[in-house]
């Protein structure tokens, strides 16, 4: 399977995620299925409700777009009084293909763009999840969140015995 196919699948999956999480506090989803890399890894069943129950503010994950807004010094200069965004789903800002020719070209066309270093969707997820999980002693092993598919096993050259360790 080509990388392009992975990418297409990823994008389609994200379109779904975005719709699912297009939510104000009122209609926020309890469960989000993140189908990003379904080729190498199965989808992540993200328990949104459980995470909101942790009592952290929405802005911990959603930055300035929802909740009480951000306190990050870098962000408040512009976003201190930002209105709530609609939608607030990750993929509405973080694109799945940050390094496509179009997206790179965009940097050349829009010379006043401020966020020239906005991470792509995959990185946005991993940073948010892993960063927090490490702090809160959540699961950090790859397969704790998404099980590797047979195709993923082949990709990493993991033989049937699966004897090797994984994680980081």
């Amino acid at each position, binding site marked *: 399977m080509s990388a392009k196919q992975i990418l297409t699948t990823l994008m389609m999956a994200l379109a779904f995620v975005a719709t699912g999480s297009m939510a104000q506090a009122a209609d926020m989803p309890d469960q989000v299925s993140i189908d990003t890399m379904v080729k190498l890894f199965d989808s992540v069943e993200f328990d949104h409700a459980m995470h909101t129950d942790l009592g952290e503010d929405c802005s911990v994950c959603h930055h300035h777009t929802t909740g009480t807004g951000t306190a990050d010094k870098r962000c408040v200069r512009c976003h201190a009084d930002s209105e709530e965004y609609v939608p607030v789903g990750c993929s509405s800002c973080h694109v799945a293909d940050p*390094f496509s020719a179009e997206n790179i070209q965009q940097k050349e066309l829009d010379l006043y763009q401020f966020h020239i270093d906005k991470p792509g969707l995959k990185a946005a997820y991993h940073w948010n999840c892993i960063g927090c999980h490490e702090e809160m002693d959540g699961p950090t092993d*790859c397969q704790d969140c998404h099980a590797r598919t047979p195709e993923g096993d082949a990709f990493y050259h993991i033989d049937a015995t699966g004897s090797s360790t994984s994680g980081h």
Partner: protein
Amino acid sequence: MSGISRRRFLAASVAGCAATTLAGPKKALAAGAFTGYSDSMGVLVDLTRCIGCRSCEAACNKEQALPAPDRPFNDMSIFDETFHGGTQKRRPDENAYTVVNRYEPEGSDEPIYRKVQCNHCNEPACLTSCFVNAYTKTQEGAVIYNNKVCVGCRNCMIACPFNVPGYSYSSAFDPIVKKCIFCHDTRLKNGLPPACVDICPQEALTFGMRKDLLKIGNQRIQTHPGRYVDHIYGEKELGGTSWMYLSSAPFDEVGFDANVSNEPIINNVKDFLGTVPMVLAIWPAMFTGFHLLAKKQAGHDNHDEKVEEQHGEEGGEQ
């Protein structure tokens, strides 16, 4: 010798010089200063983001159809491997165009992972040292290699300041240089990022135009005070590279040669290349001059008493 008329002698020396200068004009083409194609692409590697998952190694292996690894790519015990008495970590070779190494610098709680691959220099040492012009720096920024003309002298490996090119020594009949080519054939030239960038879960690898990556790198340093060493490795090193690095630890503590010059490698050689046309032009006249002097002075045969002085002259002139 005495039988040779001056005219004939001159003709002979002119012929000799012509023969030597035949190749001269080509050699004299020492490359001028080159700082890279303006719209060339690059990758910014942010060591603070890398979690050492080795997915980039797996993606590279697949994209470049390299041989299956001895151990699976999720085997993290490979970071404990060292070579040559514990002095060396893994390096790219014929079976792996990129490797990730783990470092534990003092004062850092977390290990730091560093991906190694060809840095795709603006003015590559491999390219400038190759006597069959097997290397090309493409418009897109990749340094690619033509195995059809490679003779196998391995001067490029001597020259590479990053110790990147590997050689398939085990092949008897078709040994070639093997190194990262920025996925030029399959991706880069079609406007796609290389496979390693595509797979990276952490966006530790940022793909873009080199000039934008410099802006991004500086912005990261600026907006995250205390997080990074205030330096983009590869911005200026050895004339600049397409692949550049940001790090939280001093670069020499995470496997970089921090002592490299900002001059491209070829600049070390330009002194010599510059003398080549001078030698070609001056030597014939100078030595024929010496010859004529020696001939006039001494009747060309009997000059035993001159032995000592003339020999001194010869040694001293070097």
